[in-house]
């Protein structure tokens, strides 16, 4: 504890994963997250870990599948096009109930897009980009420090629920240098055992099977129901969010990740001019802070929400559903990897406030 280091976001992710007890990394190069595999390639051998550059993201995610099936904590980092290639694998990982952590340093899209920060992968991450009825648990840090702080939680949640966890970051967080503080090292020996792992029988038990397949619909329905009982627990126990100045707020921003950081500056500016604005920032995108948003929507003081995203509006669907259309939900976004300036957002908010009066 207490080591302050100046580090790039993508590298900090790697160190945080190692401290969370992860010793295996499989991945394929893609900008803007190349610092993460490079860091792991240097660092993992120092802690008796394994780094392997896979032949593709398709192979990488399936290496994660095998490594997790064998009972080890494992991570990959990638960016949007690479994450698209991983979707089949993520579906298998969810279906076979395996714990893995995947970091998406989101860039502009669709297609090859660009390498600037964006939030166009929300639907893919939160609604399940692969086939079938499953969820990823999705964590959205808004600072480099928070990426570090959430890493241990990511691995713990993956193990606890035997479900893939995605960290939804963006190009800005990946490239940003920040003074950060790391937690100590998790004692790998003390992590909860994985009696389900296919790590060979070792003369101790009958065989284990890691599998997402059941040819009989009645069998598969049982498997599906078991997964969804798990998701009910996730939704009950694991919601995380941050509220900024909402106690007396009449106008509420909703934003996650990098954007939320910009909004905090906006709030200071608007508050200094006497406007009662606040922010609700989902930290877990799945499970989504539905109840908290509904409570705000039901509060007579709150006039409207303003959702800000680096896309044409994806999270806004969840905001509208959560608030049950009890208050207007407005939208402002930038696209293509462009970031909004604080005064640009202030102006949008001031205009909407005027119209609401």
């Amino acid at each position, binding site marked *: 504890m207490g080591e302050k280091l100046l580090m790039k976001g993508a590298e900090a992710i790697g160190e945080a994963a190692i401290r969370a007890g992860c010793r295996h990394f499989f991945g394929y190069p893609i900008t803007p997250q190349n610092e993460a595999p490079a860091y792991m390639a240097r660092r993992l051998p120092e802690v008796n870990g394994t780094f392997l550059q896979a032949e593709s993201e398709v192979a990488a995610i399936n290496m994660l*599948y*095998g490594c997790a099936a064998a009972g080890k904590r494992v991570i990959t980092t990638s960016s949007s096009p690479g994450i698209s290639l991983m979707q089949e694998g993520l579906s298998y990982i969810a279906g076979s109930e395996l714990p893995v952590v995947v970091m998406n340093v989101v860039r502009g899209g669709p297609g090859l897009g660009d390498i600037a920060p964006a939030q166009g992968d929300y639907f893919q991450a939160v609604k399940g980009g692969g086939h079938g009825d499953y969820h990823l648990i999705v964590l959205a840090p808004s600072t480099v420090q928070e990426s570090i702080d959430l890493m241990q939680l990511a691995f713990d949640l993956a193990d606890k629920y035997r479900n893939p966890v995605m960290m939804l970051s963006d190009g800005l967080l990946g490239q940003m240098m920040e003074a950060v503080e790391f937690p100590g090292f998790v004692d790998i020996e003390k992590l909860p055992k994985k009696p389900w792992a296919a790590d060979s029988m070792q003369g101790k038990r009958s065989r284990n099977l890691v*599998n997402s397949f059941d040819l009989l619909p009645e069998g598969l329905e049982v498997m599906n129901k078991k997964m969804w009982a798990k998701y009910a627990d996730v939704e009950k126990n694991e919601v995380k969010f941050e509220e900024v100045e909402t106690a007396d707020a009449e106008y509420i921003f909703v934003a996650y990740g990098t954007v939320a950081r910009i909004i905090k500056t906006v709030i200071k500016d608007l508050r200094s001019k006497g406007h009662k604005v606040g922010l609700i920032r989902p930290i877990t995108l799945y499970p989504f802070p539905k109840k908290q948003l509904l409570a705000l929507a039901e509060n007579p003081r709150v006039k409207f929400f303003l959702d800000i995203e680096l896309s044409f509006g994806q999270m806004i669907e969840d905001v509208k559903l959560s608030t049950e259309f009890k208050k207007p939900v407005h939208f402002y976004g930038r696209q293509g990897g462009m970031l909004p300036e604080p005064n640009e957002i202030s102006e949008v908010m001031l205009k909407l406030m005027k119209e609401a009066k």
Partner: protein
Amino acid sequence: MEQLNHMPTPLMDIPRSYCPGCTHGIIHRLVAEVIEEMDLLQKAIIVLPVGCSTLAVDYFAFDSVQSAHGRAPAVATGVKRALPDRFVMTYQGDGDLASIGAAEMVHAATRGELITTIFVNNGIYGMTGGQMAPTSLMGWKTETSPYGRTAQANGYPIRVSEMLAQLNGPAYIARTDVVSVPGINKTKAAIKKAFTAQIKGLGYSIVEILSTCPTNWGMTPVDALKRVKEETMKYYPLGEFKVAEGL
């Protein structure tokens, strides 16, 4: 009456759902016998493909991981890198290995990944009902080459063993058959060598086994065996294509 031939311990003693005359059953048995004879059962992990042999999730009596179509070598790489002292193998069909999973197969081989692949080459997609595989022979009529495979439309069948033999990573590569008793015996010997290559840490190993799919070939089991001898073996010569020093 005394039972002379017992089910090898690495196989579950339950009925198989493969079609009558399918050679998957023979190959399962050979794998199980070698695992038993080499005393690998307690440290073995098998990665299963998507194809008819996905059914093997119910058949092998040791740790099994079912993987996505074609990705078994990547999954097995993950398992082996996590647990380097275990015995790790994949079992794959020709659609799985030579078509959708070509990249994973080649790269696991060239990395010299310490895993063994049992490659069941029946020249067709069995599970999905008889479509053309990259290994289907010229002229073969399948669901998706109803007028027969042509070079112009479909190119040429892949000789996987010869192709992999160009790489430095593999320690053992052999092509065998299971359509005759000598063929079955040679296949078992090849499987043993391939497993030994892994145990000795020499590199990647693969046994390509020429097999049948009577159902989708539209043949009786006996005619299917004949076809392998008369057609398949002519295009896919049997033999060892790579034997590392020390094997």
